[in-house]
């Protein structure tokens, strides 16, 4: 069983699942179900990352996408209604914008190198083999190159990213805590009201 066709087959099947989920999410009216399907969506895209050998990215996507963001979306769903309100009039303009951006992106993928082919310019650049050869053997002896590049070669950027995460938390705290006086017992501890749909 040649390696490439196996990977290709799994890729195609997973991508078709992804497309079908996306269509269902768009079509469904019950927001609660849409949140659940978005949980599967991120789980599937994490599966695709593994098939394409990007294990660190798949790790993060699985933990954040399928875990935390589903919970946070459910919490917001608790504070808002559960049934999508119908749009006042058919949305033509967003459709046009979506089609234009989709078309532009499709057009742009024409001149991208095929996935993983060695003659792509990014592989030819001397920096690439500098990292691969020296990063592993001479300087760092860190088997996981991603961590060595992420932590040491671009350590300063990662420090910046950590502060970005820090500011995100501060922003959420400012937004959410602004209305302290309205806080009632939280939805998690409150008992389900009787007969309230």
């Amino acid at each position: 069983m040649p390696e490439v066709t196996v990977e290709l087959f799994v890729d195609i099947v997973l991508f078709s699942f992804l497309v079908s989920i996306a269509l269902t999410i768009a079509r469904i009216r019950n927001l609660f179900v849409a949140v659940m399907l978005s949980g599967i969506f991120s789980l599937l895209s994490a599966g695709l990352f593994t098939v394409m050998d990007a294990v660190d990215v798949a790790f993060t996507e699985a933990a954040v996408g399928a875990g935390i963001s589903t919970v946070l979306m459910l919490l917001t769903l608790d504070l808002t209604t559960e049934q999508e309100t119908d749009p006042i009039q058919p949305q033509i303009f967003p459709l046009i914008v979506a089609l234009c951006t989709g078309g532009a992106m499709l057009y742009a993928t024409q001149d991208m190198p095929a996935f993983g082919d060695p003659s792509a310019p990014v592989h030819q650049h001397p920096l690439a083999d500098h990292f691969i050869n020296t990063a592993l053997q001479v300087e760092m002896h860190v088997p996981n190159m991603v961590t060595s590049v992420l932590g040491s070669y671009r350590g300063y950027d990662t420090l910046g990213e950590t502060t970005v995460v820090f500011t995100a938390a501060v922003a959420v705290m400012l937004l959410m805590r602004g209305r302290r006086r309205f806080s009632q017992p939280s939805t998690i501890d409150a008992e389900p009201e009787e007969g309230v749909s």
Partner: protein
Amino acid sequence: MISLFFVVNVAVLVTMGIALSRAMLGPTRFDRILAVNMFGTKTVLLIAVYGFLTNRPEFLDLALVYALINFIGVIAVLKFSAYTAMTDAETDEVPR
């Protein structure tokens, strides 16, 4: 030997497809949750078997994380589905 893993992979993908169709068809909300739960366990299997297919065992860490995140996701969904659905008063006493 490799072709056997591919067969198992195809079987798991077919199960995921069927679970997906149930997730979309499911008349009640709980059918969908059931399908989501099954889908999660099957992704764990897909990753583990695919890791063996391309003999890269470090995929197993990922399968481990998947199994847990899937469990947390289902518990979260149930937590809020039971809360928003029309439930009668809380009956069973909870050991405090």
